[in-house]
């Protein structure tokens, strides 16, 4: 049930592109419904529960989030935001071909824009990928902001 190194790297680039193209249904389909999208607040934070975070979203929250983005009365998205990821080459830090589990670390610069505003964020994404029925899926995703202790305006889309 193993996958090739290229398949893993492709998966990471593909996810970023799906987000940039706002293909949210496709994006949700990449996830295992047990997964969490975690954006820690604290530098090198280890506990997602007893310290708060920017995001610690279960599958329901992720679905809610993408549903909301297209809602008729989602005023903060009238007009819509857009984003563009540029990824450093992903690094496969851990690979368990037996279990079909992979840990991939990717530094990226994330640009989010709306009307005349533009926000640039430096983030490091850590993907836990799992092979299910021969296909790669996101088991968990952690996104660390390089300046997690800074004050931010709205960040409405997902790095």
């Amino acid at each position, binding site marked *: 049930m193993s996958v090739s190194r290229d398949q893993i790297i492709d998966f990471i680039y593909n996810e970023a592109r799906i987000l940039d193209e706002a293909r949210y249904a496709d994006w949700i389909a990449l996830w295992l419904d047990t997964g969490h999208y975690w954006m820690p607040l604290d530098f090198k934070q280890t506990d997602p529960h007893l*310290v708060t975070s920017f995001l*610690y979203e279960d599958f*329901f929250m992720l679905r*809610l989030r993408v549903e*909301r983005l297209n809602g008729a009365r989602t*005023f903060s998205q009238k007009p819509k935001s857009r984003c563009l990821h540029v990824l450093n080459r992903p690094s496969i830090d851990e690979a368990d071909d037996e279990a079909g589990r992979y840990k991939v670390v990717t530094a990226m610069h994330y640009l989010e824009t709306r009307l005349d505003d533009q926000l640039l964020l430096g983030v490091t994404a850590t993907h836990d990928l799992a092979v299910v029925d021969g296909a790669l899926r996101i088991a968990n995703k952690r996104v660390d902001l390089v300046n997690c202790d800074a004050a931010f305006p709205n960040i409405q889309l997902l790095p």
Partner: protein
Amino acid sequence: MPRYATGRYTNNPAAIRALFNGGQVHRDVYVDREIYDLEMKHLWSNTWIFVGHDSQVPNKGDYFTTQIGNQPVIMVRHTDGEVHVLYNRCPHKGTKIAIDREGNTGKFFRCPYHAWSFKTDGCLLAIPLKKGYDGTALEGSKNAKGMTPVGAVHVYRGFVFARLAEHGISFDDYFGGSLSTIDNMVDRSPAGRLEVAGPPLRYINNCNWKMLVENQTDSCHPMVAHESSAGTAVRLYEEMGNPEPRPPAMEIIAPFMSPYEFMEGMGIRTWPNGHGHTGVNMSIHSDYSAIPGYFDAMTKAYGEERAKAILDENRHNTVYFPSIMTKGPIQQVRNFIPLGPDKTLIESWIYRLVGAPDMLLARTAMYSRMINASTSMVAHDDTEMYERAQEGLTTNGLEWVDLNRLYTGPESYDEERVENGTTERQMRNQIDAWVKFMTVSMEAPVEAAE
């Protein structure tokens, strides 16, 4: 409004009073640069402002840097165990003594520029080559005293407040009955104590600080502005066939869709000096699920009756004007830090109920990220409104903001009152206090001095 000051308001209490007619507020209160500067000088100096929580500086020498209005300060635990609040400014050439958000400075502060040192109560400790100042005018000058402490500091059940002005209203007179919300929040700890949990969520809204403060008791906006998040959550949950256990989001976010009737019945209480809260009779926090073991711990600590009484209190948002909003059921403080007439920094802190199960802290942490972060959908809803209003108020077609809801005639804000949960009385109460503390020091001799 003019982008430059015409001096229309400086030392002109009458002009300040004319900005509020009881039911409407002039937009200069939200957009004018001169008004903002006067707020820093008067309102934010004459009132009691939240600084932090003493559990942020548990040990001697522990410090925390923040600002009161536009004034950088350091909160520090002195060697005598007391919490002091000092201006973050070296008396030599003005260098900020520390800019780390927090740390421990040991027995004294040492300025990084020329090594003047100060006890943790601010008193000058030593100057290298001190003899260089023998017989100079430094001796006897205010600079020789060391780091200047703020006008007054008061720690109430762990919460540290300060008044910049040396003289002014006392802590008790200023907050009076409003302290009951802090009491309830702290009483919810079987040990009667809170502890800060992690750093705050920090976010920037491009709007006046008062738009955030007014929103805290704005019970007519959730079902409208938050339909996108709360309404969608409800629909999505239904589409899934209302599975149990409910996703946490349904407990935290869904109640924002509560109908007007609920908001009316919820009730609003106001106290003198601009303080007030929503959720007198019940609130969107009322239906939170019970946490195993918590009630037992509370009973053990307080006895069943008292424990019930504490937990039956379900206040929603309490505003301690002008600087914070806090809650009872959720151990959170939202600190509003003005950065300009159209820019506000919000720091959202959470606290652990000492002696209570972790699950309560977990719920508070979850509430905080779901409702307050730069990445929170609910915050996106609100921020969009604030920032649109900040821009909308620059239009000249209408110069007044309306706060008339349930304002049927002259009100006295000197008395505590409970009213229909949809009233804008608490917003009026805030503006009334705003006028009071903007003008109280306006003609004091200190003015002339500058």
